[in-house]
């Protein structure tokens, strides 16, 4: 009975294939690397490595010294033209909306440079100014050493590629790091409301 055998074999192949597709797409939810990254982080928080950062004031801080606060992290480069302006202004909005917890040192915003060679402290300070920083609770920093950036990229799942204009493109998002130093949630850019809602909700827990 060749037709029965064929049916059986086809079904087996189809089942195995669906298993593989399901596993690769995290149960048919994540067809892109970006969605997969967000689901993975939400389910299994990732420890942020203790990388040394240099801030806009020139001071060096260890990522682990930021523990005890909720951190909102984005990745930037200061030469970025139009698109990143929007990112900067979104962080300014979050700074306004979360002014209360920021004043109580419960929340801090952190913009990390993906172009540490060019983003000197003065460039970072200028970036904050351009982005209408209110001067409280927002650090712009560059990882020191090539490995520092690579370690952060690996932990956060950031892929940086060169674009046609000498700049960079990367999977931009807002990353929430909890007071224990774990990356716990990732949000879309362009919609700050769910971000501050999540922060306020998590602070209550």
């Amino acid at each position, binding site marked *: 009975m060749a037709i029965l055998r064929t049916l059986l074999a086809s079904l087996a192949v189809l089942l195995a294939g669906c298993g593989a597709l399901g596993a690769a797409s995290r149960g048919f939810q994540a067809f892109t*690397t970006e969605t997969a990254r967000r689901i993975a982080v939400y389910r299994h928080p990732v420890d942020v490595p203790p990388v040394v950062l240099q801030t806009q004031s020139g001071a060096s801080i260890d990522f682990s010294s930021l523990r005890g606060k909720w951190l909102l992290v984005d990745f930037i480069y200061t030469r970025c033209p139009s698109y990143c302006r929007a990112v900067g202004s979104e962080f300014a909005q979050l700074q306004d909306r979360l002014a209360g917890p920021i004043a109580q040192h419960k929340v801090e915003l952190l913009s990390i440079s993906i172009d540490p060679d060019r983003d000197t402290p003065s460039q970072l300070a200028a970036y904050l100014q351009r982005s209408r920083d209110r001067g409280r609770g927002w650090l712009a920093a560059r990882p020191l050493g090539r490995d520092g950036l690579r370690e952060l990229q690996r932990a956060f799942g950031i892929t940086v590629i060169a674009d046609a204009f000498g700049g960079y493109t990367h999977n931009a998002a807002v990353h929430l790091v909890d007071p224990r130093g774990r990356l716990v949630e990732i949000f879309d850019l362009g919609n700050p409301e769910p971000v501050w809602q999540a922060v306020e909700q998590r602070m209550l827990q």
Partner: protein
Amino acid sequence: MRGTRLSARIALLALLALLALATPLVKHALETSMAAQMLLQLPLLIGVGVLLSRALPHGVLARIAPWNQLGITGLVMASVAIAFWMLPRMLDASVAEPLVCVAKYLSLPLLAGLPFAISWPRMGFIVRGVFLLELIATFFRLGRLYLISPQRLCNLYLLDDQQRLGQYMLAIGAVMLLGVAGKLLWGRFDTLAQCGAAANGAR
């Protein structure tokens, strides 16, 4: 009757082709853009499997045949394998993660090209028709998706790269559609059946 020596030569040729595609220079060139990966790397790896099928001994083919009537099993296997490697996530991972890349370079020839080449001569007119129309529809669906999606689907590729792939896929889909339409209008249907019989007889 196919000689074993010829089979061995073809298998060696397929292996060499695979190794050539795996050399850093070629691999890098095939991964520089989303279009190159989807429209060159994937088909070339499938092609290695098609080549390899020419080296299969008759005994093996005869043993597979009862499990592969009308080429259905092979078609299902190839379709699933190709769909898997077309996931945007896998386009990224096969470049960024060496193990995934090895899996891709082995599975596309063995689980897509090889079963497809074995099965194509066994497919009847209807199975071929369904396959071709579904293939064309996939090119149109994905092409449109890549063209209109405001978001990058791959972290490794730029948005304009994705849109260019969309344009190429729509164009290829249109060409294939015209080809099938031409066949339907001016082709002789009995030739398909004969062609299948001839292919089977030649084996």
